[in-house]
């Protein structure tokens, strides 16, 4: 069974440019998470979806970050415009339901120059 798929794996952009990350969760997993992991730190939750509804986006910087999960399956996370401090690894995870084991994708490593 395929795990969580993320693309791209790496992205280098100049500051003020937009960037988007894509996540395909494990088939049948209704809960999807986006995390940001800064260098030398643990992941921090940005947003959690239950199906297509964002149930926890309290940590998402809404001035420049947006996310969507229109059909309750794939999800995209967008940053516009990117800042130098956004350089990090963006991880997507999914679980079969709230409180169930989270399975992580390999992440997208973003470098903003």
């Amino acid at each position, binding site marked *: 069974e395929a795990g969580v798929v993320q693309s791209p794996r790496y992205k280098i952009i100049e500051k003020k440019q937009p960037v988007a990350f894509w996540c395909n969760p494990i088939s049948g997993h209704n809960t999807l998470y986006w995390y940001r992991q800064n260098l030398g730190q*643990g*992941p921090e939750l940005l947003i959690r979806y239950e199906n297509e509804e964002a149930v926890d986006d309290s940590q998402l910087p809404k001035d420049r970050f947006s996310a969507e999960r229109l059909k309750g399956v794939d999800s995209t996370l967008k940053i516009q415009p990117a800042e130098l401090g956004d350089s990090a690894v963006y991880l997507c995870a999914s679980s079969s339901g709230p*409180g169930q084991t989270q399975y992580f994708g*390999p992440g997208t490593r973003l470098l903003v120059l």
Partner: protein
Amino acid sequence: TQLLEQSPQFLSIQEGENLTVYCNSSSVFSSLQWYRQEPGEGPVLLVTVVTGGEVKKLKRLTFQFGDARKDSSLHITAAQPGDTGLYLCAGAFVNTGTASKLTFGTGTRLQVTL
């Protein structure tokens, strides 16, 4: 913001040595998980503990949950180079009202050399 502190931050040991990693908080967890993350990959779940005082073993890894459910430890016996990686603890705090919201520690980077 509820903090979850891990120690040590870095650990470099030789094959065959034993080690212990600690995870501490001032708040009570409803459950706590340990993950290992290798370079270029996402974290992979090792174990979940939910009961105060609980001890779980996974081959050479022993996980313990504190009686008050505020701390946990991971002990590795006879470390091998394959144990190299970033070890993360992650807790679901009782007062968040949901087991879905995990707070991750800062991680312990372990390197095991021959």
